[in-house]
C-alpha cells in the first residue's frame, strides 16, 4: 500500500516537474503558473512562502523542486506513521482476550483476530469473506449481528453455543460499512457465578438444620419439658451434639480459608505415606465395621518418601476415606492403593459405592457440594474441599473417577522428597 502511494507520488512529482519545464520553455508567461504551483506545493507541507532560507538561488524551477521534495518527505513520514499505527493495532488485536470481528453490510467477515479464530474454531484465511453464520453456526448469535446491521444500533446478548456448555457474549457495534463484533467467553464466569450461588444456598442449608433442631429442643424445654429431669437430660445431650456440629463446621470453614489463603504454612518433611495411611485405616476401622464395610490397605512398605505435612496428609486421607465409608452400601469394599509415577506418589481410595454422575464429578471438591441435595450423609460437606486445598498446597493434584452404581475412586498425588 505504502509502496503504491510512494510510486504514485513520485510519478506525480515527475509529471508536474516535466509539465512545468515544458511550460517554461514554451513561454515566459507561464511563470505565473509556476509560482502558483510552488505555492500549492508549499501549502501542502505548510512551508510559508516568505521563508527566504529555503529559496533556491537559481530561480523559480529549483524553488518548485525544493518544495516538492519537502512534500515527498512529508508524505513518506505520514505513510510511515500509518504503518506504525497499523502494527500497533495488529498487536492489540492479537493479544486481546476477546474475539474481535469486522463484518460488512452483508454480514460477511472482513477481519478477525486470533481469539475469534479460536472461539469459532476457524483459521483466518479460510474465514475471510465467509458469512458470519457459517463461522458461528448459531442462529442466535447471527441474529444479534443482523439486528445491529439492520437497526444501526449496538446489540448485546449472551448465547449458549449449540451442542456445548459454552456461553458466549456478543456485542455488535454498527460501523459505517458494517459492524464490529466483540465476542467474550462467559463459560468460566457463569460457572463461578453458579458456584457462588450454590455455596450460599448450601451453607444456609447446613446452618439451618442444626439451628432448627436446637430451636425445637429449646422451645420444648420452655414449654415445660424442663420439669421432667430425664427428658431435660436427654434434650441437653442432643443440644450438645447439635452445637458440636455447628462448632465443627465453623472450625472447618475457618481452617479451609486459612489453607486457601496460605496463612498456615505447611510443615514439610520427608514422610512415609504408607505409615500415615496405616494409622488412618486403624482409626477409621471401627466406623467401617459398623457400616459393614471392608477396609483394605494395599500399599507397599517401601514407597519413596513424599514431601508433606504429616498432620495435613493424614487429614486428607481421613476425609477421603470417611467420604467413601459414607457413600458405600453395607458389604462393600474400600481399597487404598498407591502407585509411583515419576516424581509423584499417587494414592487412590476406591469404593464399591453408589457412584457419582459424570456431570457432578468435577464439582464434588467444591465446598458443601452435594450430588444428591436430598441426602445429607451427616457430614459438614467440607471434607473433600479441605482435602483438595491441602493437596494443592503440597503441589499435588486430586481428582475423582466414577461409574454410577459401580463405585468411585478418589486419587491424589504428592511430590516425592528429593534425596
Amino acid at each position, binding site marked *: 500500500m505504502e509502496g503504491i502511494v510512494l510510486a504514485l507520488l513520485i510519478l506525480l512529482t515527475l509529471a508536474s516537474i516535466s509539465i512545468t519545464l515544458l511550460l517554461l520553455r514554451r513561454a515566459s508567461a507561464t511563470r505565473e503558473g509556476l509560482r502558483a504551483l510552488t505555492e500549492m506545493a508549499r501549502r501542502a507541507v505548510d512551508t510559508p512562502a516568505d521563508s527566504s532560507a529555503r529559496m533556491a538561488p537559481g530561480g523559480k524551477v529549483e524553488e518548485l523542486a525544493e518544495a516538492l521534495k519537502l512534500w515527498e518527505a512529508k508524505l513518506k513520514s505520514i505513510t510511515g506513521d500509518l504503518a506504525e499505527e497499523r502494527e500497533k493495532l495488529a498487536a492489540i488485536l492479537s493479544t486481546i482476550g476477546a474475539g474481535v470481528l469486522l463484518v460488512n453490510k452483508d*454480514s460477511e467477515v472482513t477481519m478477525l483476530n486470533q481469539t475469534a479464530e479460536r472461539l469459532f474454531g476457524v483459521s483466518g484465511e479460510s474465514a475471510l469473506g465467509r*458469512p458470519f*453464520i*457459517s463461522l458461528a*453456526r*448459531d*442462529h*442466535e448469535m*447471527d*441474529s444479534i449481528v443482523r439486528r445491529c446491521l439492520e437497526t444501526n444500533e449496538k446489540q448485546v446478548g449472551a448465547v449458549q453455543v*449449540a*451442542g456445548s456448555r459454552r456461553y458466549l457474549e456478543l456485542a455488535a457495534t454498527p460501523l459505517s460499512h458494517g459492524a464490529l463484533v466483540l465476542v467474550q467467553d462467559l463459560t468460566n464466569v457463569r460457572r463461578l457465578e453458579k458456584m457462588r450461588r450454590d455455596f450460599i444456598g448450601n451453607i444456609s442449608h447446613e446452618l439451618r438444620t442444626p439451628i432448627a433442631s436446637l430451636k425445637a429442643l429449646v422451645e420444648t424445654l420452655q414449654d415445660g419439658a424442663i420439669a421432667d429431669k430425664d427428658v431435660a437430660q436427654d434434650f441437653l445431650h442432643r443440644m450438645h451434639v447439635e452445637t458440636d456440629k455447628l462448632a465443627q463446621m465453623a472450625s472447618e470453614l475457618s481452617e479451609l480459608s486459612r489453607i486457601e489463603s496460605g496463612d498456615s504454612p505447611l510443615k514439610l518433611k520427608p514422610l512415609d505415606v504408607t505409615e500415615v495411611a496405616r494409622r488412618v485405616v486403624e482409626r477409621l476401622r471401627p466406623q467401617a465395621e459398623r457400616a459393614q464395610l471392608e477396609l483394605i490397605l494395599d500399599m507397599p512398605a517401601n514407597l519413596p518418601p513424599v514431601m508433606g505435612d504429616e498432620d495435613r496428609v493424614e487429614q486428607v486421607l481421613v476425609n477421603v476415606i470417611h467420604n467413601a465409608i459414607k457413600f458405600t452400601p453395607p458389604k462393600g469394599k474400600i481399597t487404598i492403593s498407591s502407585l509411583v509415577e515419576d516424581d509423584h506418589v499417587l494414592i487412590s481410595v476406591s469404593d464399591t459405592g453408589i457412584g457419582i*454422575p*459424570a456431570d457432578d464429578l468435577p464439582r464434588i471438591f467444591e465446598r458443601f457440594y452435594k450430588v444428591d441435595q436430598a441426602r445429607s450423609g451427616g457430614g459438614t460437606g467440607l471434607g473433600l474441599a479441605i482435602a483438595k486445598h491441602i493437596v494443592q498446597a503440597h503441589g499435588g493434584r486430586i481428582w475423582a473417577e466414577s461409574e*454410577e452404581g459401580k463405585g468411585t475412586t478418589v486419587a491424589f498425588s504428592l511430590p516425592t522428597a528429593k534425596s
Partner: protein
Amino acid sequence: MEMRTAFHKRLREIQNDILAMGSMVEKAIMRSIEALKNRDLEMAHRIIAEDQKINEKRFDIEEKCIQLIATQQPMASDLRSIICILNIITELERIGDYAEGIAKIVIMIGDEPPLKPLIDVPRMAEKTASMLHRSLEAFVTCDTETARKVVSEDNEVDALYDQVFRELISFMVEDPKTITRATRLIWVAHNLERSADRVTNICERVVYFVTGKMEEIGASKY
C-alpha cells in the same frame, strides 16, 4: 453474467438461512434432552413454542427458492442445488418436530421420579446434533467426504438405541410398575434415532447435489 451473480448471491443468502435453521434445530434437540434431564417443564414449553419458528423458517426458505426458480430459471447444478435445499429444509423441519415431540414427552413425564440416570439418551442426542452440524457444513462446503462419514456414524446412534431399548425392556420385565415411564423413555430414544436417520437423508442430498448422482449410502438398521 449479471444474472448469474444475482442468482448466486441469493443462493448464498438461502444457504445462510439453512445454517440458521440448522442451528435452531440443533439447539432444539439438545435443549429437549436438557429439559428431560432437569425435569424443566418451562424449557419444554419454550421448545414447543419455538418449533413454530422453525416451521416458519422452513416456509420462508421454500418461498425464496420458488422465487429464485421463477425469476432466474436456473439450469443444471444451479437447479439441483435449489431442489437439494428444498429437500434439506423438509428434513430439518421434521427433525425439529422430533425435538418438539421429546419436549411433549417431558411434559407428560412431569415430575415423576426418574426411572434411571440418563446416560445413553444424552449420548444419542449429542451424536445426532453433531451429525446434523457436520451434514450442513458438508452442504455449504460441497464436501461429499464429510457427508459420507456422517452417514456411516448413524450406526453408532442405532447401537445406542438398541442398548437403551434392551435396558428399558429389562426394567419393564423386572417391575411392571415401570412400564409407563420406560415406554416414554423409549419414545424419546426413538425420536432421536429417527432424527439421526433424517440427517443421513440430508447427507445423501448433499452427495446428489455435488455429484449429480442419486445414491443411497449405507442402509440404516431402522
